[in-house]
């Protein structure tokens, strides 16, 4: 790597080390001040990324409309809605996020649609469980069996059965908790390793 190419790596490493030091040695005026500045700058740059996101959305959907690809009317609806929300949101004296039109679209269009899509989860869980039964591996049988026991252990009728509520709770408290903690520990270790590789300059995602 040329000397000029090492500058971004040095800057990234220095920035990361300062923020990390602030976490471990917090209290230093200089380190905290620098760290807070970096975090504020990152937030500002992330906000600018929103402009890039809007440009990407417009470009993708405009192309679909011009080429009358499958679903192009929905792209028209998306662009019109986006333009409406943006325009009414930035109107001087319009109230910004509390603008009447923006509020209406959010409360009576976005929220109901979001709830509708999310409500599909209930049916998708059922079809996914049925698909897991068809896989017929030991893992899928174990998953369905434990899921059934835990589900049945939640219903009021289970209180009349001698073993089910206790078994259900034991499954949640012991093997399930052990599995979750094991996965989280592994993820934590992977996160630390990846973070160190970025800090040490071995991984340079900002240059690729």
């Amino acid at each position, binding site marked *: 790597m040329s000397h000029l190419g090492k500058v971004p790596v040095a800057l990234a490493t220095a920035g990361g080390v300062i923020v990390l030091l602030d976490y471990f040695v917090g209290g230093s005026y200089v380190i905290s001040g620098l760290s807070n500045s970096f975090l504020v700058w990152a937030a500002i740059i992330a906000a600018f990324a*929103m402009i890039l996101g809007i440009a990407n959305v417009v470009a993708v959907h405009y192309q679909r409309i011009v080429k009358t690809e499958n679903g192009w009317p929905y792209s028209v609806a998306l662009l019109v809605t986006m333009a409406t929300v943006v325009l009414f949101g930035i109107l001087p004296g319009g109230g910004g996020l509390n603008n009447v039109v923006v509020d209406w679209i959010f409360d009576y269009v976005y929220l109901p649609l979001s709830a509708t*899509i999310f409500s599909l989860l209930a049916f998708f869980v059922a079809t996914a469980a049925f698909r897991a039964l068809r896989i017929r591996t030991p893992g899928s049988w174990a998953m369905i069996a434990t899921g059934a026991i835990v589900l049945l252990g939640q219903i009021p009728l289970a209180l009349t059965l001698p073993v089910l509520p206790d078994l259900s709770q034991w499954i949640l408290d012991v093997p399930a908790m052990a599995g979750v903690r094991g996965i989280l520990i592994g993820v934590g*270790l992977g996160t630390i390793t990846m973070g160190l590789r970025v800090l040490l300059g071995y991984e340079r995602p900002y240059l690729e």
Partner: protein
Amino acid sequence: MDAISGFFLDVLYYSYIKPHAAQRLGLALLLVLAVLLIYLTRRTARGSQPKLRELSAVVGLEASLGEGAPVGAKLHLGTGRAGLADSHAVETLVGIQAFGHLIKQAAAVGVPVIATAGDITTLPALENTALSGFEDTGNAALLRVDTTRFVAQDPVAYAAGVMRILNSEEVTTNVMLGSFGDEYLLMGETAAQRGIDQVVGSANPFVLPFAYATSKALLIGEEMFALAAYLQRRPTQLAGVVAQDWLRLIAVVATVLLALAASLGFVIT
């Protein structure tokens, strides 16, 4: 000059005198890990390649995207709901890293790619990765305006957008690597119902059962962090996998010893 000397004095004072024991221990452990990683990277670069166990996800991906990729294949890559400026940034980063290799493979055999981002901070990194992948294979002409797409900042809206892509854009392989929540099942089940080959990697233990039921191959937790090493085989990545193995071994031994100590009545504070 005063600011520079003040900075170093601050580091010396606050790193040794001010923090309490847990912070000192954490910092010391991190320094030890850094030294370990440097040593393992140099050892791997000198030719000491670790033996990696087979990952079914890697086998599945190579079959879908290699020279034997079916005619009319199309690849969707999803990075999930997190960005590069939040607590799940590392999961998104490892996903983008793996996607770089997959995009190059797809571009080399002429397989169209759709890469979707569920966070605005992910989009620039994804666009850069796609551009590099297509340029490196000399197929920059295959890069389209809609190859990388910012779908939505909201997780449910992101899932709805990806569902539309899976339903109507003839995707044959779906790879989801990143941070997902409950909304994963909306996308995963859609792909499963359409018979799309799926490879999913998630560090969220509550998503894994859904991913197991709907995907052809699953990367559980830290396997996601190791995927790039399997695909690209760079010394730094292989060293990272070995370092994770060592750390895991230390964590297991420490957990067992501490559990034994607690069971025998020793109080550890």
